[in-house]
């Protein structure tokens, strides 16, 4: 088709200079010289979350997207340097409150790594149950956000309705709907009774039943498939190159899951499969997470069925089985030996890395490094947007479940 062009000089809009965009002035001029223009999506846009996307479009086709994150940066790494090791536990689970147990687990494991703590078997099982419950909750939350980005309000309400069961399970186990800070160095805060575990066991079936109606209404809906299929494709090679993590890496056909590669807690004792898809498009990214929910339910059921008895807190920390009443006494004085302790944990949205650098004498970390999955797959997210239509931006955003508070930390 012949392109008809009129040579009219286009001035870049003035507002692009006053908004402190992280792009040079020459870039803006080049964009407008090439008959393209910049669209700023966010941070107040209904479909952007707490971040700004600088979208360079030619007509309706996205040429490049430059992210401008940091609107919800809370300096968690810096704050952690001023607090006791044990006081950091509630802090590190704040980036992604739905996924609190996984983030909590990674940090606590780094401390245990440094102190050479042996965690009792029962505590490991309880931690696994908590982590998987939070994983399901996060995946449901992301599915809800994806549906509302596609304009499917029923698909928004269903997962939130189902997530209530997760929250109720967490309430029964830990006393809080999320951010329970239940996992502490050496074990968990307190034992969970058999009745509660049985309740969670039956709740998994209730979740499964409700997920089937969600599947009928949203996952297999032809309009949803039409919107997500072959959109935002990341090939296997690209996904590895751009450092995509978690379910989004597995959706591109890479069989990598920290829970299988370096099993922690009870993951090597239960039977489950890594969910992998080959297409690498938005739909497979969504489907991988849907199937991971099924795997998580399977893990929870096995954990509850096979949970051993015994203590829930390490002998090195506390003689009794209940740390209540002597929590501060036992844990406030933790000092890690000098060195660097790193753990890799599979959170719901991907690998989360915790590195504690200790000087060996102070009771606060010298440096805490947190790398959350959101930050790791941001590059892959931006690359997958190239060549898609502007209306697909929200579909791809939702398929990645990008959560700015988690990425910005």
């Amino acid at each position, binding site marked *: 088709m012949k392109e008809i062009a009129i040579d009219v000089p286009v001035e870049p809009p003035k507002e692009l200079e006053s908004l402190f965009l992280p792009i040079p002035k020459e870039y803006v001029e080049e964009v407008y010289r090439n008959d393209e223009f910049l*669209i700023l999506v966010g941070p107040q*846009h*209904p*479909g952007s979350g707490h971040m700004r996307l600088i979208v360079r479009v030619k007509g*309706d086709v996205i040429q490049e997207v430059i992210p401008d994150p940091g609107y919800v940066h809370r300096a968690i790494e810096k704050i952690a340097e001023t607090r006791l090791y044990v006081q950091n536990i509630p802090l590190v689970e704040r980036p992604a409150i739905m996924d609190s147990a996984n983030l909590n687990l990674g940090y606590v494991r780094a401390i245990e790594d440094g102190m050479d703590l042996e965690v009792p078997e029962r505590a490991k099982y309880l931690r696994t149950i908590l982590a998987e419950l939070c994983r399901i909750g996060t995946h449901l939350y992301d599915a809800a956000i994806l*549906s*509302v*980005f*596609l*304009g*499917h*309000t*029923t*698909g928004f*309400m*269903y997962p939130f*309705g189902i997530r209530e069961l997760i929250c109720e399970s967490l309430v029964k186990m830990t006393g809080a709907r999320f951010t329970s800070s239940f996992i502490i160095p050496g074990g968990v805060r307190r034992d969970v009774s058999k009745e509660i575990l049985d309740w969670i066991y039956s709740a998994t079936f209730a979740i499964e039943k409700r997920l089937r109606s969600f599947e009928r*209404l*949203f996952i297999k*809906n032809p*309009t*949803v498939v*039409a*919107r997500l299929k072959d959109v935002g494709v990341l090939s296997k090679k690209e996904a590895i190159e751009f450092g995509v993590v978690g379910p989004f890496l597995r959706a591109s056909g890479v069989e990598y899951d920290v829970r299988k590669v370096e099993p922690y807690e009870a993951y090597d004792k239960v039977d489950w499969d890594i969910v992998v898809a080959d297409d690498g498009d938005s739909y497979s990214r969504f489907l991988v997470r849907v199937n991971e929910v099924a795997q998580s339910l399977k893990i929870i059921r096995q954990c509850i069925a096979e949970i051993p008895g015994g203590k829930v807190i390490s002998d090195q920390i506390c003689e009794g089985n209940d740390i209540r009443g002597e929590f501060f006494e036992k844990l406030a004085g933790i000092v890690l030996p000098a060195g660097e302790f790193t753990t890799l944990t599979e959170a719901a949205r991907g690998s989360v890395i915790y590195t504690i650098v200790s000087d060996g004498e102070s009771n606060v970390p010298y440096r805490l490094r947190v790398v959350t999955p959101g930050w790791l797959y941001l590059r892959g997210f931006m690359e997958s947007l190239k060549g898609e*239509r*502007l*209306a*697909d*931006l*929200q579909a791809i955003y939702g398929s990645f479940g990008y959560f700015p508070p988690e990425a910005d930390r």
Partner: protein
Amino acid sequence: MIEVLIDLIRYFLSILKSNQLDIPLIKPIIALIMKIVAQIPIPYLSNLVDLILAVILWRPLFAVVVMPGLTVLMIYLLYIVWFERKLTARIQWRVGPLEVYRPLRGAIQALADGIRYLFQEAIVHKDAHRPYFVQLPILAFIPVLLPIAFIPAGNVVGIKSPYAVQLTIAFISLIPITVIAIGWASNSRFAFIGSVREALMYVAYEIPFIVAAISMIFLYKSGDPYIIVENQWIPGAILNPLAFLVFLIAMLMATSRLPFEIPEADQEIAFGPFVEYSGILFGLVMVLAYEKLYVMALLFTILFLGGWNGIYISLLGDLNAPIWLTIKTIVVISIIAMVRSMYARYRIDQAIRIGFSWLLAFSMVALAIGVVIGYEGGI
């Protein structure tokens, strides 16, 4: 002087009286009112009441103002907003509007919202084309409301025309122009994108929509609603199911309902052409799509569902036809409201592909069916 006036009024009254609605049900009520009024010692009061009643029951005015015209339209607007929200809520494991008058289960929520719009400040932002920005929501009502004058319900009709169906389609086709103009007058990026999307959607559904309607005109060999309804001893939906389907989908596209809620996509372009409106102006543009839906559903009922055909209740007399037409229309709209909670939004290129591929093909087949049945003189 007063005698001339009274003569003039008498003259009008005679015109009105010659074309009155015949409703046996309200005859005793009118008689009772006249009897009560006659006892009140105010001069000319009984004549005045007589005039008012005659005006209300004058057929053309009744069709346009009461039923199936503006009054029913207002009640329908209150009902459909509530019904849509309540139905969506029920599907989504929620309660929906409830607190605005609990005994009616929140049924007057839309009225409360309307009052809120009325008292809110209608902001006209600096960059807007002020005269157009303020005028267009009101001007947009001309093509939306004019078809009501031409759509008959039995012998209750505003303007009798043998080309009523064609006229209605012509007016419906004018509505997107006002929406596009609204987006242009808003002078905002999202409104602009919304306008362009509206224009593209217009391109996508317009041809199949008109072809489907024309196929029905061929089928009945007339665009006169009376002939169309008279011929429908089998509903048009069974005679030409493809035209029925195409018309239904075109209706979803034209009123930007999910899965074709593309011009107004909240998450993408934040209510599209209407993004800059607030206060009563927003209230006006918001009901525009609902009114368009009402007019299209009226046309749909006449073309495919046998119009005002129904069980004749002799007590209602002339009111039978408008009541049946209204009931059928509102049932159609209520069914359409259900689609909202079931589908996600298509992308604009997918919607246009649907419009230009199988929707157009189906409408062409429907046209062939219409021509064949019409030519054979089967009905």
